[in-house]
């Protein structure tokens, strides 16, 4: 019987796959990647907040005796009076006479730049962009730290480095955000397509033939996996398109920073998390589709699920800006936000064990959702009889 079920699921999946691939809706699906810009604008406030929170650079101080403390105090005094953002200052080390300090090594500890040397002759070690941004600022604050009413400003020597851990982290956050947005859009598009596909079948009255011919769970699975296959075609097309653009545009094209786990693994994990997110949402949408009989009913019933998915996305995006907090943990554990949060983790941290645990946890929930979704679908999709709660006119609404 299992082989019959799988065979039936295959028949449905094959039909749906071919029907979708050759439909106009698939063209809109392929245009999906254009939507991140729109959604990005809509989610602008949260995105900006995330970026602002993450882009709070820290300047490390490694100066003789208490000169670092004096600079930190001077920064506190001047910060509000200066135009533009002023980085936080942190004293890395109070140097004893004759003691040396490896500023380049300090950059690997998460600070965006290091001020060494002395107040009279400060040395700024940072990336070229940071040097350009902070050189004058360091000179002013060092002068103010040296004396309350400075007569002149010291020349700041610079030691530029190619990159820093903080910069790399920021870039990886961008990669994580891009991954989350893509995941969200793909999931929403596909879940919407699987739902409209089901509604079309109900409208065409095909559903009764299907229900009489094959087990309902085979229909449910066939539909779910057909859309998963459709998404793979879409991803292949987008990947190829992006590759062509990169080759043609060379350095003009924006290239995302390499994720912490590396691109091959990140893409693999991305697909796994996408599959989990889609199967969770798709099961939910199909179960909703089973309850509805008209497009209007579907819209009404699926609205809360769509809103929930938006909230989940914003929640995962918000958690990205709160590393190490309970919010981040909650986003990783909550089944529907877990794929988004874990994809972000893959961009930022090279650890692999959490992904194995997360995938196992999500797979468990996918199993539960598919099982209960199919059961609900089976129970409701062919239900006839009077509309719930309608007492008046019951005789007229009797099933044939």
């Amino acid at each position, binding site marked *: 019987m299992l082989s019959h079920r799988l065979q039936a699921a295959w028949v449905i999946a094959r039909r749906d796959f071919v029907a979708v691939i050759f439909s106009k809706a698939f063209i809109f699906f392929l245009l999906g990647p254009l939507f991140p810009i729109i959604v990005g604008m809509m989610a602008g406030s949260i995105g900006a907040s995330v970026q602002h929170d993450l882009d709070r650079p820290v300047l490390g101080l490694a100066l003789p005796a208490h000169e670092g403390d004096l600079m930190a105090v001077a920064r506190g005094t001047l910060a509000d009076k200066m135009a533009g953002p002023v980085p936080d200052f942190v004293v890395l080390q109070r140097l004893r006479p004759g003691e040396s300090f490896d500023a380049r090594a300090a950059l690997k500890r998460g600070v965006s730049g290091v001020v060494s040397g002395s107040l009279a002759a400060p040395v700024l070690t940072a990336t070229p962009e940071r040097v350009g941004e902070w050189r004058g600022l360091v000179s002013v604050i060092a002068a103010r730290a040296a004396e309350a009413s400075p007569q002149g400003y010291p020349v700041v020597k610079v030691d530029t480095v190619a990159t820093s851990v903080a910069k790399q982290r920021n870039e990886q956050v961008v990669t994580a955000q891009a991954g989350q947005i893509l995941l969200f859009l793909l999931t929403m598009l596909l879940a919407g397509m699987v739902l409209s596909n089901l509604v079309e079948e109900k409208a065409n009255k*095909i559903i009764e033939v*299907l229900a009489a011919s094959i087990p309902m769970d085979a229909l449910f699975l066939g539909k779910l996996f057909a859309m998963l296959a459709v998404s793979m075609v879409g991803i292949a097309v987008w990947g190829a398109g992006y590759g062509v653009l990169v080759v043609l545009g060379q350095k003009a094209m924006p290239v995302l920073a390499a994720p912490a786990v590396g691109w091959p693994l990140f893409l693999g994990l991305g697909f796994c998390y996408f599959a989990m997110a889609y199967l969770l949402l798709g099961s939910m949408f199909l179960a909703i589709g089973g309850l509805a009989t008209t497009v209007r009913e579907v819209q009404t019933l699926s609205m809360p699920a769509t809103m929930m998915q938006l909230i989940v996305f914003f929640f995962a995006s918000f958690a990205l800006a709160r590393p190490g907090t309970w919010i981040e943990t909650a986003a990783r554990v909550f089944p529907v936000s877990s794929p988004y949060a874990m994809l972000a983790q893959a961009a930022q941290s090279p650890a692999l064990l959490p992904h194995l645990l997360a995938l196992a946890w999500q797979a468990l929930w996918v199993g539960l959702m598919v099982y209960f979704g199919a059961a609900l679908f089976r129970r409701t999709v062919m239900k006839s009889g009077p509309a719930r709660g309608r007492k008046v006119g019951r005789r007229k609404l009797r099933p*044939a």
Partner: protein
Amino acid sequence: MAHPMKMQLGEWPVPGNAVDDRDQELAVEARGLVKRFDGFTAVDGVDIAVPRGAIYGVLGPNGAGKTTTLRMLLGIIDPDEGYRRVLGTERPTDVARRIGYLPEERGLYPAMKAYEAIAFLAALRGVPLKDGRRRGRELLEMHGLGYAADRQIRQLSKGMAQQVQLLGTLVHKPDLVVFDEPFSGLDALNQGKLERMIRDLAAQGTTVLFSTHVIAHAERMCDQVAIIAGGRVPFAGPVDVARDRLRPQVRLETRARDGLWRAALPADARSEGAFWHFTLPESGVEPLLRALIEGDAGILSLSIERAGLHDAFVAIAGEAAARALEENAEEEGRR
């Protein structure tokens, strides 16, 4: 509310999967089927026994519970109570590949080509796609629709699309075919074609179970009928037995207008012009004839008419159900 299906299973003699003699005889058997929707009882204790190879009709007005009964028999929905056995199993979905089903509300994928639609319906019943496509073309050719094989369903007329779906219902050569209101929406020509097709199927040993609200179809085609009204089946059995529920009607024409022979007429006799109409007495026609002859009635003609299924339906299901049936037929005629 608890549904005592298991308790009921024990009451019937053929639970389990063993195939007994009755399985050899009955393609479909249902006992005490009950289905409720949100507290409303749509089907209330339906009993049906469809012999293998028979043409069996479920006759009743719209809203009587026909579709719900068929859906339960096919396993599309489960009964709340009762026992069903289809092609030797209590789980109809297990034998779905041996069943063909044409629902009342027809439907195909509009973008599919006609032969692909048939192949898809065949694939649902386990026929490989390649074979389904070949058979689809063959069937369309055989039924004079070969020219439309490569047309999309949306390009076909409603009648043609219905024929395509009908062929898709039969493409896998099922042992049992279930039609829900198969004549609905068909013109007289296509109704005739469908009637012939149903008879051919039965002649080949296929069991045909169909629902209808048109008495003439049931009377013309069915070996047995289940009369259904208000979710109940007050009669299920051979059409002849249903008709025999009513005594035959006598139509008598006499030369004499009055005489001793009048005493031989039963109490319900009524006069219409030169004719008398009355129910054949239980004693039969011979004592009546003798009394008429001995009383010098001068018999010009005497005919005995067996009751039609319509009269039987009125007697079995009641006036209200019969009226509803007629209204349904008129409504469809207007459509």
